[in-house]
Every structure is written in structure tokens, then in C-alpha cells.
């Protein structure tokens, strides 16, 4: 009994094992959180996808599965998830095999949306270079269809959350003309998707972020 107590104590101080079981894919459209190594809080704002998918269903009628689910790059189920979402504040580290696997995923129809929740920019750019050494993140112009396919965003990305007072920027990587990776910097729409009380964003900002997220989903589903 005492041993068990000690073990509990050790867990109290931070030795809890990580549980990473992916969700079960269904026929409805789902967004899957990408679990990555490196120390960044990949699990940040778990209500984001749930709220976005609920919103998408409401405004477009697309059948969605509004659940929070995540997948590890090494997980066999990775290729069953058409839309990956990654966010966080800190470091990201892809091993060589993870980078290769992620590249294979993206080259074969997958899509990754990365949202810098502040502090992710540098490690993300570094790690994505491992995934696509030959590709550059190109800034996407406001005229691109993603910003217009469902709701109009004539000035490009919305500025959902304040970071360093810079203008929001949306970058992408294209393979064979298809946008396979979309990265938002200094914008942080996923904060706007989270429950209202999490960040206390004005409702107007949240709605704007959700509308933008809808565009992203619609674009990915139709291209």
C-alpha cells in the first residue's frame, strides 16, 4: 500500500504517463489535433475544433463530427484523418522519421493547418523545413479562393488575437497546385474557435474566426 502511495506521490510530481490514443474516424468530416513532440502545448484549447465543426455544420450543412480527437504522427491511423490541426505556444520537434511520414501524408492527399498560438513560429518553420526541405512557405494573397469560398475575407486573414501587434499572415505550401499546408501567423483564429470564456474574445471576433475556419474547411473539402 505504501508503495502505491509513493507511486501516487511520484505521479503527483509529474510522472504521469502520456496517453495518446487516437480517435476513431467516422464518415463525417472531422478535424484531428496533431500531437507532436518538443514540449509545446499541442493540446491547447481543446474546444476549438469542436466549436468550429459545430459551426461549420450549422452554416454549411456539411456533416461534421464535432469531437476533440488527436493523433500522433507515428500512429497508424494518421492517414485516416484528412484534416490535421496543430497549434501551441512552444517548441516543436519532428524526428526524421516523423518528418518523412508527415510529408508522405501531405503528398498523398492530407492537409495540415497550423496556427501559431504565439511562440510557435520559429520552431514550426524550422521543423516544416525538415518535412519539405525543398519548399518554401509562401504568403498567400488576399485574392486566393480560400479567403472567398464561403465567406468574404477581402483583407485576408482576420486578426483574432493580439500577439506582437503585427499584421496577420497566412502562408501555404503547394504541391502540384494543391494547398497541402496552411499556416497562420499573428492571427490565431483557433483562439477564436475556443469556448468564449477561455480567452474572453468579443463575440464578433469569435464569429469572424469561425467564419474563417469554415472557409478553410470548405476549401480543403473542395480542392
Amino acid at each position, binding site marked *: 500500500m505504501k508503495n502505491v502511495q509513493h507511486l501516487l506521490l511520484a505521479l503527483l510530481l509529474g510522472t504521469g504517463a502520456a496517453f495518446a490514443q487516437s480517435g476513431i474516424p467516422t464518415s463525417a468530416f472531422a478535424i484531428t489535433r496533431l500531437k507532436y513532440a518538443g514540449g509545446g502545448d499541442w493540446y491547447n484549447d481543446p474546444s476549438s475544433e469542436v466549436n468550429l465543426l459545430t459551426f461549420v455544420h450549422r452554416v454549411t450543412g456539411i456533416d461534421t463530427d464535432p469531437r476533440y480527437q488527436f493523433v500522433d504522427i507515428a500512429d497508424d491511423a494518421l492517414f485516416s484523418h484528412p484534416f490535421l490541426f496543430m497549434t501551441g505556444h512552444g517548441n516543436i520537434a519532428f524526428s526524421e522519421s516523423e518528418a518523412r511520414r508527415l510529408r508522405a501524408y501531405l503528398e498523398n492527399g492530407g492537409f495540415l493547418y497550423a496556427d501559431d498560438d504565439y511562440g510557435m513560429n520559429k520552431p514550426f518553420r524550422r521543423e516544416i523545413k525538415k518535412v519539405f526541405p525543398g*519548399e518554401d512557405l509562401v504568403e498567400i494573397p488576399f485574392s486566393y479562393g480560400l479567403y472567398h469560398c464561403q465567406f468574404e475575407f477581402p483583407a485576408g486573414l482576420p486578426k483574432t488575437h493580439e500577439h506582437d501587434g503585427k499584421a496577420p499572415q497566412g502562408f501555404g505550401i503547394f504541391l502540384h497546385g494543391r494547398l497541402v499546408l496552411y499556416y497562420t501567423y499573428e492571427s490565431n483564429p483557433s483562439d477564436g474557435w475556443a469556448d468564449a470564456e477561455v480567452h474572453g474574445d*468579443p463575440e464578433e471576433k469569435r464569429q469572424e474566426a469561425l467564419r474563417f475556419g469554415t472557409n478553410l474547411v470548405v476549401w480543403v473539402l473542395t480542392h
Partner: protein
Amino acid sequence: MDTTGIHTEFQERLGAVRKKQDIAGIIHGAAFSGSVFLGALLLALIGEELFNFGVAGRTILFWLLLLIAVILFLMRIGRPLGRLAGVLSGKDDLETAREVGRAIPRVNDRLVNALQLVADGDTRRLYSGDLIEASLADLRDDCEGIDFTSTVDRAGSRRMGRFLLVCTLSGVLVFALFPTAFFGAADRLLHWSEAYALPPQFRFVVEPGSRELVKGETIPVRVRVIGETPGEITIAYRRRGDLYYEERVLRADAAGQFRHQFASLTETTEYYVHARGVRGDDYTLTVMDRPLVRVLRVAVTPPAYSRLPERQQDDNVGEVAALRGARIRFDIEANKVLKTGQISLSDSAVLPLEITAKKAHGTLVLMKERSYHIDLRDSTGTGSIDPVEYSLKIIPDAFPTVTLLAPGENLDLTDTTPVNLLAKIADDYGFSSVRLGYKLVQSKYEEPAQTFTYVPLPLPPGATLGALVAYRWSVAGLHLVPEDVVSYFVEVFDNDIISGPKSAISEIYSLRLPSMDEVFAQADKGHEASIEGMQDALKQAKEARREMEELTQSLRTSADKMEWQDRQKAGELLKKYDEVRTKMDSVKTAVDRMAEDLSRNRVLSKETLDKYQELQQLMAQMSSPEFAEAMKQLQQAMQQMSPEALRQAMQQFSLSEETFRKSIERTLSLLRRIQIEQKVDEAVRRTEQMVKQQDALRENTENARAGDQARMEQLQREQKEVQEHLDALKTQMKDLQKKMEEFPAEMPLGELENAQQEMSRDSLDERMEQISRDMEHMQPRQASRGQKQALSSMAKLGDHLQKMQQEMRQNQQRQILNAMRRSMRDLLDLSRREEALKNESESLEPNSRRFRDNEEGQMDVMRDLGMVADQLAALSEKTFGVTPEMGKSIGDALRDMNDAMRSLAQRNRSAASAQQTDAMGSLNEAAQRVEDSMNAMQQGGGQGMGMAGLMQRLQRLSSQQGGINNASRNLGAMTPAQAAEMSRLAGEQGMVRKSLEQLAREAAAAGDLKKLMGDLNQAAREMVEVQTDLTTGNFNPETARKEDRILSRLLDAQRSTRERDYEKKRTSTAGQDMLRESPASIDLTTIQGRSRLRRDMQKALEEGYAREYEDLIKRYFEILEQSEPHAR
């Protein structure tokens, strides 16, 4: 003059009389002849018309007329004409002289006599020549001045002329009245030799006969019959160009007239009437078109302010809807040449159109709603009929809108930091200006302003229909004092220059500068609510824990099948934990908000703020994904209906739950301690503020003029405010005392008591009362003296409080360091014991009885390690310095020891020994982590490493590195002095490296800062290389680059630390829309081409060629990329 001359003269004068008489005769004869001939002709025509003579009759008649004419000419014109021409002989001089003499009494016979005297030779002989000459001369003299021609009578000629005129007019009249008949008769008479048929028994008189009419007009035709009226007549008509006539029989009406009506004639029509073989004349009704609009083109030019382009409406669309002030141009094409045209408006206004042949145009400015139609007239003056009525509608220019997005709420100012305003403006056509309006509406010291003050805001360039207006409002200029309230709004004006700019204002918000009391009160409230929330959550968690244990017990006794009650209980349990989690999330949000407010208001010390940040971090980690996953698994197990699965899930959940619950307890405990620190900060801050206020008041009192009652009253009010602050401080200190008493061992209660005594000893209350009284009695000097003494007491109080604050921190640090030191010593002691056990295990024989002893010894070590872990767990409630990494090392050690015990029980010497070695290693690691944490605390001056400590040390290192970089670049030629300097720099670089390595170790120990390690370690490696270069005197450009990289890494590390540090502040700030240019468009073909090349290059490089080949491959692809920028 002689006789002959006079005679000749008389002859000439008489000749003139005869000539005049002949002319008069010709005129008279002509008039007479004409009259007679006309009469005869008229009679002949009447006869012909009436009797229709045959050829013979007409021949006689014709020749008779001709004979009459000849006779008349010869008789009445030819004779005088012959006399005038001298062909016929006329009167002689004597006869003429007689006529003259008869006409002129004065002449009488004298002229005849004289002529006879001259002419008659016999007489001449009877009278002397002189007498004849004298007689003639006398006559001549008498006739001097008499015009003999005046004796010619012309009255007859005039009468006859008048008669001829009457005859002529009569003839004309007759012809005019009966043209057909008389002209017919004349025609027949002129052609007397030709035979003519007999005229019909009747003829037709048709009205209107031929005429022109407007298309669509209805024409009535009336036919009268002259002569024997037939019972019916036929009217025949056809369109011009048709071959055949249509006919219609007409019957006479009561008046004996025949009527027909051509209704709405649209084409020119020819017609005639006939009856019984008698055909009337042909007539033509010529149809003329009315002018009408064939094409109407309307172009609308909106007013310039709208920036809308000119709009050309579709052809023949005359309805216009446009903005007020729009110019409307009408271009009209008519069906025929026009003379005039106009646009007639419903309010009686008229716009004349300019005409060019068939075209007309005009321009109208739309200022009010009306209707209009187009009136046209052709060259004949015929106007258009039934024109289409069109409407002119005004599209209203909507009011602009403005929304204040930021702050977008009533705001409490933290200080005089500018307020960032962001207004979203919109209008249908654009803006002319935006402005900010504000006024002071509430103040303790000033009268509220009556009117708003306006500040023009800059319109963003290119703002058209919508824009975001950002403005950094410097509220410092408002000179606000605490509790002042300012109302403000943003007003936008549109660009309607036609009707005048319309404006709209945003919601009116207020800015308020809260007092320090309010800030602290709010924070207190937040604290109490957070603590209460956490206590509730903890209570609920404990209750849920008890239920979980009961459920676990129940499951143990369950058979293979799970009871539904168990399942229900498990469900309720999950629900409860979910509630706890939600409650903790809301507490976390409240703490975040509170920390944000306190940070923004700058009322806390840096140390306390650091602790808040660490607390926030701790709370963020509480709701870990592991706990969520355990809950999820428990839920899945419930659905499997297997007690075993549920038991396992419950066990797993139990572990996570314990962690979660302990985290709540730890957080609660830390929050209570932080609250005390915050209250100490508050006391210090209040005292400082009070001192400042009192000092200012003292100065004002000294400067106040004696006898200035109003001023003294004002100062007295301010003094009372200071007194109120003192009262508040006293209350707050009592509250602080209560809270400190909860942790008597850690808190400097003695120093607090000293501070309270200081206040009592100096009787600050009474002193302030006295100052107020002095002011009331208008004694500023005494009041000022009192204020100085009060100020001194307050300063002492401040010193005591600061001392208390310092002591509290030192006490806490000392106690924590002692406890950690104890734990470290214990860990090292345990490590030694573990080592002894390991050595013993290695030497054990397989059948040795000492296995049992060793196992017992291992159990003792485990028990003691548990105690150390308990100590650290207790300590973790006081400090952030106890990190999860320490727990992990201890956990690893416990697991290894547990495994070793199992191996010892199985007499597995080698396994036990290896596990004990691992346990020893983990113990050493734990001890190292505790030491690192202690070092960090000592260097950082606080508890735990903390962001601030790390920042300071990084800054210091960056500064040192910057110095080394500069100094090394300034080294010139390698003189002995330079060599010595380089050696010194190498030494310094070594020291910086050691410090950095230490820092990296500590960052690693602090767990969350691990991510910095990579950068710092890399910097440390390069520092070694730089140090080597400096030591060997080999400072080269590569060394300089390395130095730059090192400095860059250090600065980056600071920035990333700072980003993390401020993260929590950031999360409560919504983004503000920013306008920027779109990035350049992307050419996917180029991107793809380049990407393909790069992918190919990457693949080639991955083949593992030698370095020189790789360089060649790179070069090859670079050239390819440059030469084929659009390669596909």
C-alpha cells in the same frame, strides 16, 4: 415775239390739248370696250352653262364675241389711237380753240379770233400787221399761265374705268362661286369646234375633300349633291399604292347629305364618290405622323462624391432612380424632324431640349422626386400625344455607421497609458471625416464639462466604403485623477456634399481612472472568489474520491457482470469530476484576469508578479491531457460492461485523479501565500502613495495664502482623503495580520506588529485630526508643521512595512532552502544506502539467507525515500522551486527499488543489483535537481528559478558576450599587449561559457524552460571554439561570425523567454483588425516548377554522393532554376 411766233405757240398749246383729248378717248374707249366685252362674255358663258350649246351655237357665240371685241376696239379705241398717231385727221386749231374758249371764259372767242386774224388772208389785209401783232401779244399775255390741257374732261374716263372694275369683279366673283361651271363653260367656248358630252344631272360637293391629317385622326366626310339627288351614292377609297378601291354605299340623311367617317386613319387614303355613273373628283387624305419618341436613352451620372461611374440605362428605360444631385442626360431620337421638344415635369417645371433634326437632348439634375414626360413638336407644329410618364426617384444616401471595436467597453484606465481606439466605419459612398468626442462627466475635483471636445482622427488612406480607424489616444493630456470619468465616442461623417454630410456616432463609452483602493478591493474580491472556488472544487473532489473508493470496493466484490448501480455510480463520478474540472478552469480564468489587472495597474512588486505568473503556469498544467484521457478511458470501460475493465480504468483514473486533487491543494496553498504577499505589496504601495500625497499636500499648504478660505477648504478636503487612506491602510493591515496568522512560522508577524505600533505610537489619527482643525481655523503654518510630523511618521511606517516585506521573503527563502537542503542531504544519504545495498547484492550467493536482509534493507530505503517525497510534496505547496522533474526522478527511483525488491525476493542477484544501481542513479539525479533548484533560487533571489531570474542572467551574459565581441574586433596587429588582451578575452569567454552551461542546466531542471536548452548548449559549444581561437591567437573572420551567432542565440533565448513570460497577458487581448496590402499574387506554375527542381535536387542529394559531387549537383540545379524560372 412776232406774230408768227405767237401763233406757233398757240398752235402748239392747242396741239397738246388735242393729244390729251385723244389719250382720254383711248382710255375711255378701252374701259368701255372692256366692260361691254366682259358683259357679253359673261352672258355667253351663262348661256353656255345653262344651255350647253352645240358646236354651231358655240361657234356663233365665239365669233360673235370676237366681232364685238373687234368693233369695240375699232370704234372706241382705234379712232382716238389713229388720231393720236396722226393716221386719222382730227379737230383743227379753230375748233380746239373754240372748245378752249368755251371752257375758259377769260379766253372765250379771243383765241379763235386771233387765230382767224392770222390764218385768214383777207382779214389780214383788213387789219394792220401791228394791230394783229398787238392783238396776239395781248392775248398771249392774257393766256399767260393758263393751261389749255386742263380743259380736257377726264371724268368720263374715270367713270368708265370704275364701271370696268365693277364688271371685272363681278365676273371674278361668278367664277369664284361657280368655278367648275364657268370654267367648264369657258373651256367649251374656247374649244367651240369640239363636241362635248352633256353634263351630268348632278354633281358632288365633297367636304373636306383633300387634306392632311395626323396619323390616327378620324375624318368625317360629307357629300352634298348638287342637282338631282340620287337615293344613294358610293364612296370608294383605297390606301395609297393599292390597286383596288374599297367601296361603301352611303345614303342621304335627313338633310339630304351623305356622310362617311374614316376612323383612325394611319395611312394616306385616296377616295372619291360616285352615283349613277357620275364620278366625283378624286381626293386624298394625306396621313402625317405625329412626332414620337423612337429611342430614349438615359445616362445617369451620380454625384462626384459617390465615386460611382456614369450609368447608361437600357434603351427606352426612362424610369430613373439615382442619388440626389445626379445628372441625368436624356438623348432622344424621334420619328421625324423636330422643331421643338421639352421634358415636362410633374411640378410644372419644363426642361427645353436641344433639337438637331430628329434628335433632342437635355440634362437634368435630380434634386427631388418627380415624374416627367417628353413633349415633341414637328416642323408643322404637330405635337406628340399621350406621352409616357416616367418617374424620377431619389436613392437615399444612407447614414454612415461606426462601431467602436476597441476598447468597445467601459474601460478602467490603469494609468495614463494611451488608449488604443479602433473604430470600424462604413458608409455606402464614403467618408469626409472622423473625429473623437469626449468630455469629463464625473470628477471629485472638477465640474463636469458641458460640451464635448473633439479631436479629428486620421482617415486611413484609401478608405472608401469601409475602413478601420485606429487612433492612439493620449489620455495623459486629459490630466485625469483617480475616479474621474470621461465619456467618449467616435463620430463619422459621410461625404454627401449634395445634402450635406450626415454623421453617426458610436456607442458612448466611458473611461475611468480607478483609485488604488478600488484596484486592491477588486483584487481582494478576485482572490477570495478564487480561493472559495478552489476550496469548493477540492471539497467536491474529496467527496468524489470517497465515492470512487466505495465504487472500487463494490467492483472488487462484483462477479463477472457489472451491476447497473455500479455503472450509474461511475457515470455520476465522472460527471462530478467534470464539474470539478470546469470549476477549476473558471478559477484559472479568474486568476488570469486578476493577474492581468494587477499587472496592468502596476500595483504589485515584481517578485509577486513573478509568482503570479508561475501560479498561472501551474494552473495551466493542472488540467492535463492525461487526466482527460483517463476520464475518457473510464467512460469507455463503462460502456464495456466489464467489471474488470472498469476496475483497471478506475485504477488508472485514480492515479490521475490523485495528481489532479493534489494539484488543487498545492495551488490553493500557493494562492493563499501569494495573497499574503500581495497584501504586503498593497500595504507598502498604499503607504508610498500616502506619503506622496501628504508631501504634496504639505507643499500646497505651505504655499497657501493666509486668509484664502476657499483654498484652505480644498486642502482640508484633501487632508481628509489622506486620513481616509490611513484608515483603509489600518483595516488592510488587520486583515493582513489575520492572513499571516494562518502561516505563523513563515510570516513576519513581529514586524507587522511593529508597524501597527508605529502608527499607534505616533498617533497619526489624532495628528491628522489636528491638521484638519488647523486648516479649519485658517492656520496654515500650524497645519504645515503637523503635516511634516505626519509625513515623518508615515515614512517610518513605510520603512517598517518594507522591512516586513523583505523579512518575509528572506524567511520564506531561508525556510525553503533549508527544507530543500535537508531533502537533498536525505536523498544523498539514501543514495549511499542504496549503493551499499547494491554492493551487498552483488556479493550475495544464490542460496544466501541475506537476500531477505537485503530486501528488508531495500524496503527501509523505500520507506525513507517516501518520507523525503512527502517533505518535498509539502514543500511544493510553499514554492514553485519543487519541480515535476524532481518528482520524476524520485518516482523512477521508487520504481527501480520496487523492482529490485521483487528481484531479491526471486533471488535474482544480477537483476537486483542492476535495479539498485538505477535507483541510485535516479536518487543522485533527484539530488542534483534539488541542488540546481536551490542554486537557481539563490541566484535569482526568489523562489524557484523564475522567468525574471533567468532573464536577468541571460541579459548579463548577453552584455558580457557583447563586450567580448567588441573587444576582440578592436584588436589590431599582434603585439605582446594585444596577445595579452586576447588571452584575457579567452578567459572571459570561458567564464561566460561556464555561466551559460550552469544556466542551461538550471533551465533544464526548471522543466518548462527545456526548450531553451538547445540554443544555449549550441551557444556554449561555439563559445569553446571561440575560446580556443582566442587562446591560440587565431582570431579570424569565422571566429567573428561565431561570436555573432553566440550573441544572437543569447538574445533569441531572452526573447523566447520573454514571449513565454508575457503569454498570459496576451491571451486576454483580442486582435485588432489591421489593414495591409495583399501579398503579391502567386504563380503556382512557378512554385511547382521550382518545387519540382528542389525535390529532384533533394532526392539527388539523398543518394549519398561525395561532398564534391553534392556541390556539383547543387550548382547544376541552381543553374537550372535560374535558366528555367517557369519550368514545369
